[in-house]
């Protein structure tokens, strides 16, 4: 699964640490996601989509 978390995060001006805290995960998990090394659960994908102020999960993640 690919994602555009780094681009959306930078657009909002938030750090990996901020995103991790708001999504309720460790910073290492955000790093793994940004490097496409980890496929999140639906709940985490939803939480990240909300933190990144996107409407749909598909706006952030793609298969």
């Amino acid at each position: 699964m690919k994602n555009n978390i780094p681009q959306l995060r930078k657009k909002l001006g938030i750090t990996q640490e901020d995103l991790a805290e708001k999504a309720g995960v460790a910073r290492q998990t955000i790093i793994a996601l940004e490097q496409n090394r980890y496929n999140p659960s639906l709940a985490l994908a939803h939480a990240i989509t909300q933190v990144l102020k996107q409407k749909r999960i598909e706006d952030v993640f793609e298969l």
Partner: protein
Amino acid sequence: MLGKAHWFKRRKYTGWGLVPATWQGWVYLAAAIALIMLTQALPIAENVRITLLFILVFILILDVVDIMRKLPMDERERIHEALAERNALWAILTALIAGIGWQAYISAISKTVQIDPLIITALLVGVAAKAITNLYLDRKN
């Protein structure tokens, strides 16, 4: 109980338990060691000293379990821990079964039963823990 969860992190590369993550964690560890050493240096009867040691270690183990329960873990960390624990279990099982095999071989050669009941008990406890976990998980989700 005594220590705070944010003072520590899970031990990942050197066994099980906790490692200090902040200076408070190191103070906690130093205080625990100092307390144990202090009680062992007290001029009291040996049986009282040993009892005191066991009580302190028991309290420490309870506190470590409590802290570990409270340490936050996200879904990725949970998956990593589950896989690492599963692999550790397989390694332990292999060693235990090899031990039983060796003891069975010695028993057969010497014509005396030399199988350690503790190893059998450990395996049976493991079987029970697995069954209970699966029963719980099947009902939960």
